[in-house]
């Protein structure tokens, strides 16, 4: 019995190890390419030992224009995910706690924006936002990314709120709190981990998006998803710069993930009382 336990534990750790390798190797490889010259980067057999150079970082951020798009991406993704959470969380709470006619249809209709392929919906959006002269600012793309993130905010948040027993709200309401108070003071603190994961999902959603961002931003406000493909040129792809920019782009998200990880652990949620 004990032997089986140990075997199981070892094999599980091994599986974890393999999984981590699979996740991390491509990203490390990207980091290595960013430190290589073009000749080293494209050599076969792959070179693990080489003289590192920072030339790619310099080309991308000092001589090249890629610092601004990274910043744009951060602003757009952060703002649109906060907006989506502000609009989505109360709605998720309502869908979880309240029953009304047409609820199912309303719940599904939120998904609409996400279901339509961007190819065509981008055209009217482009026309409207150009008329409103919002293309050169962040406004157009933030509004649209908020819309595309909303289904995530509402649907996933609702899932987390559903897990919170109704007694929590009822107790709060009996104490004289309003619905809003019950949501803010009692329900949301319990599912803070869900809140964080959902916000992260919204952030990633905007951070990842390409086509709408291409059409709905100006040159100065373009996010880095739009800027990076320009490094794929008829005179070769600048792999060093692609990986240098991408490696830098990982940092803010990674820092956030490191700081946020304690909230994933359920003991910190303060919800232990009712369990």
């Amino acid at each position, binding site marked *: 019995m004990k032997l089986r336990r140990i075997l199981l534990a070892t094999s599980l750790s091994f599986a974890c190890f393999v999984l981590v390798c699979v996740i991390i190797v491509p990203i490390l490889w990207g980091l290595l390419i960013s430190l290589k010259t073009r000749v080293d980067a494209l050599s076969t057999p792959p070179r693990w030992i080489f003289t590192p150079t920072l030339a790619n970082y310099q080309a991308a951020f000092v001589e090249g224009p890629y610092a601004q798009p990274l910043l744009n991406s951060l602003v757009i993704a952060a703002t649109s995910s906060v907006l989506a959470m502000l*609009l989505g969380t109360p709605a998720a709470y309502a869908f979880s706690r*309240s029953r009304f006619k047409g609820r199912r249809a309303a719940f*599904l209709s939120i998904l609409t924006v996400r279901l339509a*392929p961007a190819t065509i919906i981008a055209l009217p959006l482009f026309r409207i936002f150009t008329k409103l002269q919002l293309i050169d600012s962040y406004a157009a793309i933030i509004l649209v990314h908020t*819309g595309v993130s909303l289904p995530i905010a509402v649907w996933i948040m*609702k*899932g987390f709120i559903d897990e919170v027993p109704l007694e929590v709200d009822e107790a709060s309401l009996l104490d004289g709190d309003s619905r809003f108070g019950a949501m803010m003071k009692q329900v949301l603190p319990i599912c803070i981990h869900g809140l964080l994961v959902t916000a992260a999902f919204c952030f990633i959603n905007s951070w990842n998006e390409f086509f709408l961002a291409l059409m709905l931003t100006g040159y100065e406000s373009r996010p880095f998803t739009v800027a990076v493909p320009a490094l794929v040129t008829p005179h070769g792809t600048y792999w060093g710069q692609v990986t240098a920019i991408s490696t830098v782009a990982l940092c803010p998200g990674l820092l956030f993930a490191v700081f946020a990880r304690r909230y994933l652990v359920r003991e910190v949620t303060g919800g232990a009382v009712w369990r």
Partner: protein
Amino acid sequence: MQAKHQRNAYFLAWSLGPLFIFLTAVFLGPFVYMLWLSFTDLSFAAPDRTGNFMGLDNYSRALWHDEVFLGSLARSAIFTLLSVSPEILIGIIVAEILYTRPIAQRLLSPLFALPVLLPTVVVGLYWRIMLQGEFGVVSYYLAELGLPAAKGILSNSHTILITLALVDIWQWTPFVALVLLAGRSSLPRAPLEAALLDGASQLRAFVDVTLPGMLPTVIVIGLIRAVDSFKEFDKVFILTGGGPGNASELSSIYAWRVAFRRWDFGYAAAICVLIYLLLYAVSQGVLSKIHVGARR
């Protein structure tokens, strides 16, 4: 009673009002425009096709005369199945492993966020350079390990959808696991402990108690992933451009080709509406399987 009713209306107004006002304000117009466009012949190449109404022509063409479109729908469906089901399956297992091992969870959860922090276009570029037959690191070591076919992995029209699905799995599985882990953490502990006290094995308890508890989260994340996967464009466009031939031409790539190669915006709109309707129907079907509302 009256007061309660009013209070409820007030609650709905502040919670749902802003959301629907926002969605209608920003998207209703464009959506109606897209719908209208799908009944017209608008083209960016032919000056006489300025958006004349032509009834259901685009739809009948797409559904009855366009095998390429139907084929691309099938490929999208296969791609979605190939990518999302492993993502969910591995995601559930990993979430369970991490849940029971707080130290591993603490160490690994930030790493799990890494792949999704690379935008999809960049994921496409990363895998392009790693799978490139001549200087790709992955194809090189696979060939060294006795898989010479790896040197043409992106040129193989038979396995290309699997290759692309694997890239998608790499990109999304860790994050799906994180979301499921959060969902797992919300579950009350008591039922599981009770089951274990009753003498159920770990596995039995997991299948009977934990899994049903996680089901709503699983379905929601599965649905959102499936919708995104069905519309997958960026990675595939960079990795194969839909080729070889049209072996990896997903429906969104076809829609793009109709719009930006043939400049046939009316027809492209019809295709987009059809994709929308299909996804809507599937979502509705899935949605009817889960409760909308907290469990009592």
